[in-house]
């Protein structure tokens, strides 16, 4: 594996290898010395053509803990805002000797385009492309679920996950559906019909319009952010009605199984899809997701970049 573009490209063995590697690396992150020499001399470019806090900082922290050099590059304040194309940007990065480019872009398929082109020779890591995929987020979610709920096994067989909310705009949901089902989990999507994409019937998931009937049976409640910036038309009558039917609040929290956990990929709209007390409750593993994000991304960078790039790496 040279690039990480989509969960669809990963076998379950490869996904489990990433999770296992992260497991070992998390012990390093817990130790007194957080820096490892493993990627010394490698240059990694964070190419973010769309806003991000968590993912960019997380990849940056992961790269730095492995001693790679990180160059941050955001569309605002660069020549991209003067109209420079992806091709010219990529060729510039290649000329500067980038070993890997972590790309976030508002266009679905941007990472694939970069990887398929001859513009640059380094690895491409998809950090979110449009409404397509966000593979590193799904991997850190799977890692968090495994750490909290799975004891003894290395996949997610028998775990039931509800993904709730704005499925249609969510690359996190797409990557998670692919990865969680690949690892043996059972996934139920919960959303109003307007927030489900066309063709969702063919996905390997169950679908429900009734949050209350699902919540008491699941091990994981994964809330998604309502992506107001991608909504050019009306998808639900008003925010209060949405919160009432599909938001996670104190009453719904009480209906959950005693062991069940609450997840959210962030950033949260507190008060819309999740109330503040649910987000901060003891069941919430939202901050754990952030911590795990760094170790999972270290594992991705290690597996893509630590070995020989010339030999054509096989994961």
């Amino acid at each position, binding site marked *: 594996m040279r690039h990480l573009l989509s969960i669809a490209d990963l076998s379950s063995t490869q996904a489990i*290898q990433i999770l*296992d*590697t992260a497991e*070992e*690396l998390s*012990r*390093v992150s817990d*130790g*007194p*010395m957080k820096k*490892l*020499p*493993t990627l010394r001399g490698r240059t990694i470019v964070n190419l973010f053509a769309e806003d991000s806090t968590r993912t960019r900082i997380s990849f940056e922290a992961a790269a730095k803990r492995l001693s790679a050099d990180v160059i941050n590059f955001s569309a605002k304040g660069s020549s991209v805002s003067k109209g420079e194309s992806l091709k010219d940007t990529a060729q510039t990065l290649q000329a500067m000797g980038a070993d890997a480019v972590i790309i976030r872009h508002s266009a679905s398929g941007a990472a694939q385009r970069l990887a398929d082109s001859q513009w640059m020779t380094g690895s491409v890591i998809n950090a979110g492309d449009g409404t397509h995929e966000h593979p590193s987020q799904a991997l850190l979610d799977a890692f968090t679920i495994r750490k909290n709920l799975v004891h003894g096994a290395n996949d997610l067989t028998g775990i039931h996950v509800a993904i709730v909310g704005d499925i249609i705009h969510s690359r996190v949901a797409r990557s998670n559906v692919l990865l969680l089902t690949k690892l043996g989990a059972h996934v139920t999507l919960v959303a109003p019909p307007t927030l489900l994409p066309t063709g969702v019937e063919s996905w390997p998931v169950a679908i429900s319009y009734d949050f209350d009937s699902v919540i008491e049976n699941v091990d994981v409640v994964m809330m998604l952010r309502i992506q107001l910036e991608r909504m050019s038309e009306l998808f639900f009558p008003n925010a209060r009605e949405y919160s009432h039917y599909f938001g996670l609040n104190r009453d719904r929290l009480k209906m959950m199984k005693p062991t069940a956990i609450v997840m959210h990929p962030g950033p949260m709209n507190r008060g819309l899809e999740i109330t503040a007390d649910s987000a901060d409750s003891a069941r919430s593993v939202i901050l754990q997701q952030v911590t795990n994000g760094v170790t999972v991304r270290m594992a991705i960078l*290690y*597996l*893509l970049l*630590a*070995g*020989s*790039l010339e*030999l054509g*790496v*096989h*994961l």
Partner: protein
Amino acid sequence: MDRAITRISHEILERNSGSDSITLLGIPTRGAHLATRLAMKIEAIEGNPVQYGTLDITLHRDDLRMRPPRALMPTTIPTLGVENRNVILVDDVLFSGRTIRAALDALGEIGRPASVQLAVLIDRGHRQLPIRADYVGKNLPTSLAQIIKVQFTELDGLDAVTLEEGAL
């Protein structure tokens, strides 16, 4: 092999005046099994539990770039840690010395031991770094073309050290 492990155990105890100050750290995969064997033997001799664990050195190797990525192995540090302990690194075969250099780096990341010693089952020569073992099961002069295979019952179903003729 058992006799060599018994002798090394006694040498470790003699040199460190007992087992109270020592921590055995095996380098996965086979060094970890050897460390467990040594710990069991020392416990049998002394009658006290011994601190032992494993130390994965993959992230500190200097040959990472020459091969496809390697899977990481577990690192388990015993309860007393390594700080001010007499740490004994354990590996099956001592060859170039590069693994031990990486192990010293990995160990430095965990803490500052009082001393670091090295126990190996086989020393086959051909050092590329100024590193020597404190405890050696057997010195086995080899040519670079030969391959040494160490097998443990736990992993391979038998205890054996075999020398194979390989092609250079």
